[in-house]
């Protein structure tokens, strides 16, 4: 296991991240496979203008739910504007709760 993988959200999903189904498909295709292969996985939000909870929860909470809390040691969240950072933090918290079995959504 070595190297760093960077997912460019704006290029891959658009500058407005709003569709949870799209996020889920993107995670399965573009993020999950690299979690076990790379030491660092960067989610680069450069150019992302806006987002909503549906997208972020599907993308990030799902990662934590699937791979567990230790996946946070690999993840880097880059270039998050303030509102995006709030959504990322909340999605992480939700993912941690779910992976610990605290929440049945």
């Amino acid at each position: 296991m070595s190297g760093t993988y960077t997912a460019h959200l704006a290029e891959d999903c658009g500058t407005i991240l709003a569709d949870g189904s799209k996020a889920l498909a993107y995670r399965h295709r573009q993020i999950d496979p690299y979690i076990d292969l790379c030491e660092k996985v960067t989610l680069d939000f450069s150019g992302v203008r806006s987002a909503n909870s549906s997208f972020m929860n599907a993308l990030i909470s799902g990662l934590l739910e699937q791979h567990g809390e230790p996946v946070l040691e690999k993840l880097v969240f880059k270039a998050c504007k303030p509102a995006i950072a709030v959504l990322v933090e909340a999605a992480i918290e939700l993912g941690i709760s779910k992976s610990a079995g605290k929440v049945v959504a």
Partner: protein
Amino acid sequence: MNVFRLPMHLNAGGLLPFLTMMGCPLHDGGVEIDISELRRVLPASMVSLVAMVNLWRRKGREVRFTGISECPILSYLQRMDFLSSCGIDVPEAFRRHDSKGRFVSVKNVIHQTDEMAREVAGCLAPGGEEFDHPNAGLYDMITYVLTEVANNIRQHSSGTGYAAAQVHGHEGMIRMAFADNGMGILKSFRMVEAQWSEQATDAEAIARALEPRVSCKAGPPNEGVGLTMVSSVVSKIGGALLVVSGSGMAKFPIGGGSSFETFPEGASYQGTMVAMTFPERAAKRFADALKEAKDDAGILQSGRRRATFEP
């Protein structure tokens, strides 16, 4: 024939009496809507009426509008694409101007909610596409609210959804509204076999839908926080929110608080309608309001400590 004469003012005070009037059980036959007296109408009244008219048509009822030429706000209704959305074609005797910064005409809620958000936020918050523009917070707020509500409509209404908005510059307020003619919130819960919903009322179902982490949609990617955050953020920036579904309604007035009620006279709205009013300037603090809303809902506690953020 069911005849409705629309009152002069379908404004904030007139919305619920209007929905009660339109939501009473219909007799057999068609529907006639007289708009000759109509002088003031808000987006919520428009989109809910468009949703109703299109539902009645889908069910085979004849719907006709009367008093069109006498209506003092005919050109406004045309600019808002209200009549055309109701299937009424009236020649326009005016030139359309750019609506940027003023209003968003009635739109179908489409699958590409991100594209819709770009268009609507670009119209209501001109310049906000740029991160450092004074309207950037407003742009974020509109995008967030629109995509969350539109996703809800698209994913589980099984009906058609409509949206419209208006900037009221003299009040410094923005009014946005969404309406669909689908199954409504209570039936959505019953579809996913939420056991409690069997004995619940529409008002109780709305209340549950507004609780964090309660979703009408089964399984991932839905976490059930979208509508909860929308209501909380709107309240935190000093706005008001109304959610109507079936015979129930939830009111979040300006200044805080909430109430869950049932329509009088057996009235019911088939589908769900979400209307909000918020101060244009306060939307600048959208990011802070969102953070507070997530905090209140117990879904933002210590994420930053455990996550790595890079500039």
